[in-house]
């Protein structure tokens, strides 16, 4: 069947509801990338010398790197000198000491996005760090967390207040020379979130960062670093949106996770960057490097992502399983509608004995959407008894979309067990008619079918966010079903 079913087309045409622009004075550097710009950013943030040196080293390395060509996404060459690498809302200086100092327009922006920052209105049990363009504008529940010795703040603040921790861990999982976009990020990153959970502490609430791109022609290059000391636990969630614009905007983030012995980090993403219009104009290029290291026995890292936005999504949240019995998990829903492209997956690198990894990937493509799963499972020599289970499912809506899976498996230890399952199915007119004949609207039928498809992944999200993710998917489906 085709997307000619008018009900399905209507569903697929849902508007992007986070596409407004906040009219606010911003402090921006003119477009262009040079050592001078990097020095400017570093100075603006009053960074210590080690960090400026680190940035410059990354930049010089980046200059020598070719643009990667190996993924299955297509986009015109990016002019890195046409991007502005720093934009900060003017009304706040270095960091607002309290919410009262935050520009009301910014608070309004987040309220409109459903993220109230005023403490009395906040989601109970969720602390939020709000990043607007290049800077963090507010972090909530800091004091409550501090009582447990947990540090949750903007990256800039961490650099000022906890430089030793930053210096110890920054780049220890994703080196500044790692890949083209990670190097670019290392050179110019502006802000992001920092989390430190001390030994034996179970973080009493969900931590979340909400990223918002507002300014035109800027890139967003945030950097997140999460350190879970021995025996600690933290669950972290990030959400993202951007205004609707005709130009493409670059978002090249780096996330590093470090879980020490017996520690667990759950990292969830609900990514709803502007996907571009139905003709494929505009949208965010979401080129992100995310990696976690299980740096101790029994350490556990799970990535859960729901990727509904962006013109192009290109990311492989990975886990390096160094300690014995370490566990790595990757649960992903990636949805592409219209001309969106996604090339996403994970890498599970087994070093320790009896390390285990699970990969559940659900790709949904509608209209002309392109979706690729690309995953690497690598078991090194010493990883006695390592196990991996991979399941990759693709759901097609309409007959012009595409799904591909590229599983790479490298096993160097004969005791390892690696299993891979894959399936592709299509929402058909028959399925829709069947549901409609049972009294469901076409819209509800599609949502039902898609949610059924994604259930395994949604189950991994904290409750509030699972609901949010379902809603987002429902919205993004409007106009996709065919």
């Amino acid at each position, binding site marked *: 069947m085709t997307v000619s*079913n008018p009900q399905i087309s209507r569903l697929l045409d849902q508007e992007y509801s986070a596409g407004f622009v906040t009219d606010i004075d911003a402090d921006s550097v003119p477009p262009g990338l040079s050592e001078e710009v990097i020095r400017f950013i570093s100075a603006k943030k009053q960074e210590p010398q080690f960090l400026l040196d680190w940035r410059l080293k990354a930049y010089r390395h980046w200059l020598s790197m070719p643009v990667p060509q190996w993924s299955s996404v297509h986009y015109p060459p990016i002019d890195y000198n046409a991007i502005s690498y720093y934009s900060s809302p003017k009304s706040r200086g270095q960091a607002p000491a309290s919410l009262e100092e935050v520009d009301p327009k910014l608070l309004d922006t987040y309220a409109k996005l459903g993220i109230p920052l005023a403490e009395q209105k906040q989601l109970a049990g969720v602390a939020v760090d709000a990043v607007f363009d290049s800077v963090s504008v507010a972090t909530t529940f800091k004091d409550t967390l501090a009582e447990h010795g947990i540090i949750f703040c903007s990256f800039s603040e961490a650099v000022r207040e906890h430089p030793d921790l930053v210096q110890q861990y920054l780049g220890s999982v994703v080196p500044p020379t790692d890949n083209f976009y990670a190097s670019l990020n290392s050179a110019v990153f502006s802000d992001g979130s920092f989390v430190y959970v001390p030994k034996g502490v179970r973080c009493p609430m969900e931590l979340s960062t909400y990223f918002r791109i507002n300014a035109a022609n800027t890139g967003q290059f945030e950097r997140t670093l999460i350190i879970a000391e021995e025996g600690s636990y933290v669950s972290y969630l990030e959400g993202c949106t951007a205004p609707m614009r005709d130009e493409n905007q670059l978002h090249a983030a780096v996330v590093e996770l470090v879980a020490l012995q017996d520690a667990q980090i759950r990292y969830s993403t609900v990514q709803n960057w502007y996907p571009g219009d139905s003709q494929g104009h505009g949208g965010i290029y979401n080129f992100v490097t995310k990696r976690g290291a299980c740096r101790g026995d029994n350490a556990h890292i799970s990535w859960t992502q729901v990727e509904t936005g962006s013109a192009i999504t290109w990311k492989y949240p990975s886990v390096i399983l160094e300690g014995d019995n370490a566990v790595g998990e990757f649960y992903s829903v990636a949805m592409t509608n219209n001309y969106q492209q996604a090339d996403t997956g994970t890498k599970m690198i087994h070093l320790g004995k009896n390390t285990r990894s699970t990969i559940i990937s659900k790709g949904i493509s509608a209209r002309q959407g392109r979706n690729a799963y690309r995953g690497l499972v690598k078991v090194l020599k010493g990883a006695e008894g390592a196990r991996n289970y991979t399941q990759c499912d693709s759901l097609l809506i309409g007959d012009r979309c595409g799904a591909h899976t590229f599983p790479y498996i490298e096993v160097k230890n004969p005791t390892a067990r690696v299993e891979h399952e894959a*399936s592709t*199915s299509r929402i*058909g*007119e*028959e*399925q829709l*008619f*069947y*549901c*409609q*004949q*049972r*009294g*469901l*609207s*076409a819209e*509800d039928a599609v949502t*039902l*079918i898609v949610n*059924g*498809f*994604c*259930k395994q992944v949604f189950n991994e999200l904290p409750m509030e966010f699972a609901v949010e993710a379902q809603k987002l998917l429902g919205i993004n489906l409007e106009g996709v079903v065919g």
Partner: protein
Amino acid sequence: MNTLLRIKNLHVSVEGKAILHGIDLSINAGEVHAIMGPNGSGKSTFAQVLAGREQFEVLQGSIHYAGENLLTLSPEKRARAGIFLAFQYPVEIPGVSNVYLLKTALNAIRKQRGEAELDAMDFLERVKQHTAMMQMDEELLYRSVNAGFSGGEKKRNEILQLLMLEPRLAILDETDSGLDIDALQVVANGVNSLRDDTRAFLLVTHYQRLLDYIRPDFVHVLAAGRLVKSGGPELALELEQRGYSWLKEAAVAATP
């Protein structure tokens, strides 16, 4: 008599090909009608047109259901108004649990009737009761809709849905095909349990044997897109003896 369905001069085509050439049929509440006919004569087309499948184009004629023009209603509105189709080939829906679809469907239909959603306990009790009646394994409730069901399980599942949704007009498209005698009896019991003077049934079947268990009030023969003969239950017996060819020839001769 209370006319539930009134079809006049119905002409239907699919992909530009004319399939039904002027069907006239009235069904009153309380009645059971059987439609028999050779393969490809248009029985499933007829059933699906009643349920509102878009790919079948109504070229001419009218269908009124409970006094309302059915042709202007979407499939889901027809379903909510009490029309149920047990599919000849029920489709699989991976990932959607059978019981969840059932609950969503029931609530959509109850909402239309102005009834509150059933609470989880009442719902479960009812599902279990009907599952037992259909002699289905409860495990099938928690599997994905029709996924990996055997042919017989799919058909029983259709009747389970029928029992839960309590339609006013139930259309069964060859629900009996592929069932053994025991299963046939189970299906027939399910259908008979719903029979009352407010509901009507339209049974599409190839075989007389279903009609041994669900006794029809009327039997119609559909051949080459026309109802070429109507009668009482004895017509089914006659067809069993003589086949369709004597009727088919008449139909072909009548086709312009």
